[in-house]
């Protein structure tokens, strides 16, 4: 019927347009920041899962580099051992937590005291409050990174944003963060940076307070059987690893969500199929299909 035909045609036109435009037009800069290149993440798509080793390396990068300034207040050490995450062993997270001195109390004397961290403790914050953080960082406030991978995105533009529904592109945040961490450059001629300012090609407006923090060889990765790290110890690799870790921290139940989703989706399609045939069977009782039936 007309309405169906028209809407179907309109939908098809949009989709065809989207596909062809997407394959033709290269990504272009918008709003001061260059569009980040897409990275091939292990967690993208309907079957994506986190790479445990990568998350463990990512935690190490966060711990040794980022955590000097950035808090992750929603994260607790126990999270590091939960299913679908880095899956450190219980013993490992107890050791990781015990590395930190946690302020607790007050005790019976009414005084705060320090004790070794426990798995149920939150990641300690580098600064007691925002003012202290700003004071230590030349006025800039290092953000909490707990859900940063979901709190960042970039504009996809007309055909792509529709296409993303089909390709299930959800990695705008991670792509942007990884590009940002490795996007430091010398400012173009004629641009004077003030102290505490840095030039980053992916930052909106290009001026960023955070300096380049990741350098090749800076973080030592666990060695494989051959005495060498299985992945290169480069800034690029550090960036990918720590961003994967941040993505997991932002969406810790992603693996459970996708696996349940696959089952639910298949169930609903099968059920819809059954309902379709049941519907056909029931409607076949109607007079125009069964002439002579009682009215």
């Amino acid at each position, binding site marked *: *019927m*007309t*309405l*169906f035909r*028209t809407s179907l045609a309109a939908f098809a036109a949009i989709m065809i347009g989207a596909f062809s435009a997407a394959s033709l037009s290269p990504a272009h800069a918008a*709003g001061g920041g260059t569009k980040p290149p897409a990275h091939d993440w292990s967690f993208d798509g*309907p079957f994506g899962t986190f790479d445990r080793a990568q998350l463990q390396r990512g935690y190490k990068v966060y711990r040794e580099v980022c955590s000097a300034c950035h808090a992750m207040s*929603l994260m607790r050490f126990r*999270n590091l051992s939960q299913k679908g995450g880095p899956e450190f062993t219980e013993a490992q997270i107890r050791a990781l937590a015990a590395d930190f001195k946690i302020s607790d109390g007050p005790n019976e004397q009414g005084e705060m005291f320090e004790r070794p961290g426990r798995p149920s403790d939150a990641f300690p914050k580098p600064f007691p409050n925002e003012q202290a953080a700003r004071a230590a960082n030349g006025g800039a406030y290092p953000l*909490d990174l*707990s*859900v*940063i991978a*979901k*709190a*960042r*995105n970039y504009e996809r533009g007309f055909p792509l944003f529709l296409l*993303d*529904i089909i390709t*299930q592109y*959800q990695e*705008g*945040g991670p792509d942007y963060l990884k590009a940002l961490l490795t996007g430091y450059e010398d400012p173009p001629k004629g641009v004077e940076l003030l102290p505490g300012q840095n030039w980053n090609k992916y930052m*909106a407006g290009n001026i960023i307070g955070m300096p380049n923090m990741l350098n090749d060889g800076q973080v030592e990765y666990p060695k494989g059987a051959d005495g060498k790290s299985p992945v290169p110890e480069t800034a690029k690799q550090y960036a990918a690893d720590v961003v994967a870790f941040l993505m997991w921290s*932002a969406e*810790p*139940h992603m693996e*459970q*969500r*996708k696996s*349940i*989703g*696959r089952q*639910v*989706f298949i169930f*609903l*399609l099968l*059920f*819809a199929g059954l*309902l*379709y045939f*049941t*519907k056909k069977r*029931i*409607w076949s009782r*109607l*007079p*125009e299909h069964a002439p002579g039936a009682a*009215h």
Partner: protein
Amino acid sequence: MSGPSSYVPKLGIAKWLDARLPLPRLMYDSFIAYPVPRNLNYFWTFGGILMLMLVSQILTGVILAMHYTPHATLAFTSVEGIMRDVEYGWLMRYMHANGASMFFIAVYIHIFRGLYYGSYKAPREVLWILGVIIFLLMMATAFMGYVLPWGQMSFWGATVITNLFSAFPIVGETIVTFLWGGYSVDNPTLTRFFSLHFLLPFMIFGVVILHVWALHVTGQNNPTGVEVKAVAKDTIPFTPYATIKDAFALVLFFAFFAYFLFFIPNYLGHADNYIPANPAVTPAHIVPEWYFLPFYAILRAVPDKLGGVLLMFAAIAVLVVLPWLDTSKVKSMSYRPLARQCFWAFAVTCVMLGWLGSRPAEGIYVTLSQLFTALYFAYFLIALPLLGLFETPKKLPGSIAESVLGKMKGGSGAVVGAAASAEPNTKG
């Protein structure tokens, strides 16, 4: 269709209850024997889908409220606690957030169905107006719900939308202060929004009952727009025919819902709402959720503050008077060639307004917003009143049965051949 029912329950206990409270009779008449036009297409399944979406939102919402803390310093963390620590909390929250979008997708299809097939015309004006009230309540509920996670978009959305009321002369400032419960959007605003967000869905539920009641008095419209003439020939009982068809459509819709919910749960949301609310920093572009975008575009199309607000409210108010604006006696646009083109132009206008609502309010976007705002109102205030006077509609089928069974059998035995000129509207 209305009037005293002759139904007598068969079961002893049902008979006992029916004599004291005719609930079994009401249920039987409303959901079993209720006659529906036999030619309804799948656009008519969205009423049932909406009912289920409302139930889904209430169920997930009640669970979320058990774990949520309505306080400015704790709201964001408590929502993240739901996402991280509560068993299946992520499912509840994503179901609720995406469910709101699905609710609006379904309601927009439902509304456009009504617009296309003229379901707002006599004798269904009250049914239609009740629908507009439900739509308004939904918008209020969705807006206040979006504030609750207390992210950046929550906070700034609340600030911008509550400030709309300051446009009204004299009382404006007072209204805004009373909405806020303070001198800015803050904790008192959050707690009262939480309270109202919990209350409104139940008010929606109440109006839905009136909506269904009104529907069952007038009976459903249908793709031909020709009223039921002979119940025995033109209609079929709700159960099992409509129930099974609704169930099939519902499951397909839920598959669509599940796709978003499980695989791209943040696609319809905005990244900035994962940043905790910060009264000192406004996001670069404040955009409402997608379902408000067309109205947001209309709001910003007018350079005058009060004018923009009034126009936005008028965009919804015009729906209330629509039954009296459309002068054509023919309901279905399938028989109105000119009106049908206007309808599709109107649909495109709404999509364009939605797109413009997501753009910054500057340069060409403002001009385009003004153009499409004008087109939006032109559809209601110019096209529909005038078309009814000048347009020559196609010939309508003699009856619903005739449109289904066609000329070969002439189901009703009436004007054979009349359906030949009609659109081939068979059941979906």
